């Protein structure tokens, strides 16, 4: 697996990460080395082995769908907005999308 700077830029873009040119160069070399090490996994025969995504088998517990009132601050505003970066009315403000 060859980690080109182009690949690093593409993956960083997918992850919405802004990288400096220096970071692209450094990370590409480091990822090359790490992936080179990880390639040892190809030597393991995993034919017919089910992937394990959790530490052990667990069931998904179900619970009643109960409505819980949202917590409010001392002024009666939703608590989650108390320390929001920018608030507009009762919501979070972001730049225009269109």
């Amino acid at each position: 697996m060859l980690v080109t700077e182009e690949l690093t830029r593409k993956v960083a873009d997918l992850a919405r990460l802004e990288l400096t040119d220096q970071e692209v160069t450094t990370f590409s070399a480091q990822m090359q080395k790490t992936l080179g090490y990880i390639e040892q996994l190809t030597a393991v025969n995993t034919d017919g082995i089910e992937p394990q995504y959790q530490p052990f088998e667990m069931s998904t517990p179900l619970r009643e769908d109960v409505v819980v009132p949202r917590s409010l601050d001392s002024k009666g505003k939703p608590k989650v907005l108390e320390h929001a970066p920018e608030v507009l009315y009762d919501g979070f403000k972001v730049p225009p999308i269109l």
Partner: protein
Amino acid sequence: MSHFQNFSSIHDAFDAKKISATELTKEYLAKIEASKHNAFLTVLKDRALKQAASADAIIAAKGKVPRAEMPLLGIPLGIKDVLTMDGVRTTCASKLLDNYIPPYTATAVERLEKAGAISIGKLNMDEFAMGGSNENSAYGPVDHPTHPGYVPGGSSGGSAAAVGADLCAAALGTDTGGSIRQPAHYSGIVGMKPTYGTVSRYGLVAFASSLDQIGPMTKSVADSATLLEVMGGYDPLDSTSSERTLEKFSQIAAKEPDWKNLRIGVPKEYWVDGIADDVANRVRESLKFFEKKGAKLVDVSLPHTQYSVSVYYIVAVSEASSNLSRFDGVRFGVRPASLKDAKDLADFYKKVRAQFGPEVKRRIILGTFALSSGYYDAYFRKACQVRRLITHDFNEAFKHCDFIAAPVSPTTAFKQKDQTMDPLKMYLNDILTIPANLSGLPGISVPCGKGDHDLPIGLQLLGPAFSDGGLLSLAHAFEKGRA
């Protein structure tokens, strides 16, 4: 200044009116202020003193500490800054969360405080718990508790340094690939990663959800048992929280193991190349201790150990790349000044996320890569298949032994800046702690002596899933027998 070895000696002092919870808290606050370890990111002075005053009021009203109902009454604890507390800044040692004040409290912290604990402050760590030396904090590295210039370990480095230097009575850490056990080993304290699902992860800022577990970092095994008993147990707010009835860890830990029927497994693959002589010698002496007590040492094999670092650095970073996508600056977090030039929302996200430190960026990139179209099968799926083989190894090994004894990490603490330039070398330090996370097993690091330069060394004990009580009992007997 007072110095207490465990919670029960603190409670004895409260009962004998030798010191009050308020006085003890003030002593710790003074020590924190004078300390140069950089272990604390936020000191909760006023809040802690209020908690101490109410602890003193309860002790005065009852005549003594009601130990059964409030086993942590008046005990000052440090909380790793990856656990939320309502109204208290929680940074995860990241610039991106420099101003984040969560509106809710982690279940573990809530239960400890309900049992009377005082939260004295939030502890430094590697950013988002990614690292093994506490050099990845946006707020600067943490110094080793007894050896200035050395790392305390990571990612719970602030917790290890604070407990090791007696800046609090005990602390909470989190362990995703060894982040409790390794700093405990480096810093000469007790650190336990419970079985996955024992402690609720509600309010723990997620790094790798299938691996993360909260655990105690303490001066004694008994204290770890007490903390685990108080904060563990089912929580409907964490869907991976175990519904099993929690064992009475503090009682079980105090019991002598049934030595004659005890088999301690020694995995040959854990004696990898690169285990330093001082570490190897102390662990071998520890094995002899068990043998002398009457336990049987059994050679076991965990043949896929050599692949665990590879599996971990695919699984953990993949989960992290997904978990950390929530840090987009919309609902919380720091919006940097550069945002005024943001062209659109995608550009907005990028400028916010540029605030991540280099190790976090590195892991998000690797994780995004491993999950991306065209690479998913070769990397993520393959790693999860080998993860099953690693779990199978443990299942087989535990047919022949009750617990496993091994080193925690190949070396003792290293000097700051020694390994930061080579991420892969740093990752390889985790080879002996990672397997327990991949398979959800409980593990504990207990001090077992000193090595070169008088640096601390820990013994790692591992057990099958949900054998936490037995593990604590074994660790407690070892601690007592060594003293």
